[in-house]
């Protein structure tokens, strides 16, 4: 196995961990907002839809930028790939899909935690 093939899964894992950390932190910061929305009548399902929808849009935009970047850099990594083309649609969509899935999971976990908290507790002292 060449270097790129070996490092690919590790890079993907790092990317997934990074996205998870950033997105989960970002949703964690929105605990107050989620509590306020629920206190004034939002159903948990509508808040979850809002948070996941926003994360999906941002992650999809990131994935599109990444795909553009991979297209621009394709010549520099072409020689290091084995049995995979730089524009392989299956590989590209699988990677983008996986990162999107990671972002949605990273959103859903803290959002569900925030929604399970009583607004009175989440807003106490703020």
């Amino acid at each position, binding site marked *: 196995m060449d270097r790129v093939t070996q490092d690919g899964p590790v890079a993907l894992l790092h990317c997934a961990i990074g996205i998870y950390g950033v997105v989960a932190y970002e949703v964690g910061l929105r605990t107050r907002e989620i509590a306020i929305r629920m206190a*004034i009548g939002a159903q948990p399902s509508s808040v979850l839809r809002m948070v996941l929808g926003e994360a999906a849009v941002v992650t999809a935009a990131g994935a599109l930028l990444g795909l553009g970047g991979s297209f621009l850099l394709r010549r520099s990594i072409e020689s290091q790939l084995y049995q995979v083309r730089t524009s392989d649609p299956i590989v590209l969509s699988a990677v983008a899909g996986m990162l999107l899935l990671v972002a949605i999971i990273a959103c859903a976990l803290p959002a569900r935690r925030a929604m399970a908290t009583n607004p009175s507790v989440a807003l106490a002292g703020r």
Partner: protein
Amino acid sequence: MLFNRKSSLSEVPGAQDVLANAPLISTRGIEKSYPVGPGQTYVLRRITVNIKPGEFVSIMGPSGAGKSTLLHILGMHDATWSGEYVFMGQPIHALAPKQRATIQKRNIGFVFQSYHLLDDLTVYENIELPLSYRDVPKAERQSIVADVLDRFGIVAKKDLYPSQLSGGQQQLVGVARAVVANPSVILADEPTGNLHSSQGRDIMELFKRLNDEGTTIVQVTHSESNAAYGNRIITLRDGFMES
């Protein structure tokens, strides 16, 4: 279900008097505690309260007496308590969270001491938010919000963000947000606690006007002068009701 039952009852002769005198809010033996070490620390003990439609009730007591905790229970923001709570004839203690949330959003407006407006939304959007959660069509929302902005004299502020408003103005928006969906009851947790006395007086005058128009109001306050706007005081001390 509640509303159907109410409308059919109201057709029975004499039933309207009964409905008018029936409590809007009725609690029996409400208790709230937190686990501390091996035991429990009680914040509320055996709270029994009846509040009729159209009342203006003030909950008073020293810090730590459980006033805000009780208000949040009445506002259905807190589900971890024991006892019985009946709101407009509905046994809240026996309902699933989704049903509670539906009753809450239809009937309760909440005003916070720290305003709790959403910083990224304009005044207009903050006031519109409760209507969007009640599936009010957009055209109708625009008309209702325009009316509320006009009633509260904040039309000129509608495109500003909360950070661009004074504390009094933010609380005015907080009250506007609480009343925009025309709730049966407004619960206010120390609504003037962060305001100058003149701004506080304006807010209390506003509550008085809303109460005169028929909205039931329950406020938590430390201020005797604010309590004087209401017609009844409930006093809590160390989690127990004194009066």
